[in-house]
């Protein structure tokens, strides 16, 4: 069964946050978002407060999934990078290690070349952290270490649904 969870601990989150905060700064980006390919927001940095990040994550994942479907139809494996040009803001989207999506929002203060350059470096670092997360999950699985859910009772679950 491939239905194992992605488990992210505080230290992993801090590492990822530091990488994307640096990326936001180095690329002079308005916002940088890390999105799981299943549509979950993992981390965000930058100045774009108050936007609907849940929808951003879900649509980004849908976009990447659709492009990857298109790629396969024409015999490509993936289209790992996407660039959307707007009137004011632009989006640069990269698929990292086939698992995580790096989204950079930038305007005229930056440029596609700069963003592309900085994303390349940050992408490698993000991939490393996710490799550590994967190894940790394998280790936890092998050693039988429980998640917070190993302790929950039927009552805990029922209480969630009590009106």
């Amino acid at each position: 069964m491939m239905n194992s969870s992605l488990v992210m601990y505080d230290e992993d989150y801090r590492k990822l946050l530091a990488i994307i905060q640096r990326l936001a700064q180095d690329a002079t980006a308005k916002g940088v978002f890390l999105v799981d390919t299943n549509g979950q927001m993992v981390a965000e940095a930058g100045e774009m407060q108050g936007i609907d990040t849940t929808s951003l994550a879900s649509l980004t994942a849908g976009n990447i999934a659709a492009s990857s479907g298109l790629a396969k139809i024409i015999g490509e494996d993936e289209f790992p990078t996407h660039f959307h040009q707007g009137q004011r803001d632009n989006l640069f989207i990269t698929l990292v290690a086939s698992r995580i999506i790096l989204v950079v929002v930038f305007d005229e203060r930056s440029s596609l070349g700069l963003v592309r350059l900085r994303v390349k470096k940050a992408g490698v670092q993000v991939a490393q952290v996710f490799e550590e997360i994967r190894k940790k999950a394998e280790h936890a699985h092998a050693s039988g270490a429980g998640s917070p859910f190993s302790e929950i009772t039927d009552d805990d679950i029922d209480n969630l649904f009590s009106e």
Partner: protein
Amino acid sequence: MSFINYSAREINCKIVYYGPGLCGKTTNLQFIYNRTNPEVKGKMISLATETERTLFFDFLPLALGEIRGFKTRFHLYTVPGQVFYDASRKLILKGVDGVVFVADSQVERMEANLESMDNLRVNLAEQGYDLDQLPFVIQYNKRDVPNAAALEELRKLLNPQGKVPDFEACATKGTGVFETLKATAKMILKDLRSMSR
């Protein structure tokens, strides 16, 4: 695939509403959206055609509350039901934690129900999932229409062994909508618990 975030103390799960075209998948989500408190729900996204047929997916994030200090969030998705959107349906099943199959009770839609159920099984298998191992609930929708098939008939076709929890519903009025969602969410949480033990 659920996402457990210790840093934000959150758990996120994905539920996909599957079923034939016009069976009421989007209507289920719309009812849930209309009847939940603003602090519980996020924005509902519908990627639909001009005639309001789902083109890619509908999406509704819901926060159900806390379990042992972890915020429990469910992301609800629908697939496009029309047969020719199969490529899109496959994409939406990626990372699914639980499936709701919405069946159309109308007699003339029996074949479409069966075809969609087979399609669900095949598309899940392509992603490495076994429908029999996944949290799965069936909803018999449109029970109020005059040409609705008998419940036993629907069960015989879609739930022959009676192993899948099933509910009667009328999604336009909301009957059975929350019961279906709750049953699915509970199954997912129990599944997570058994996987972590």
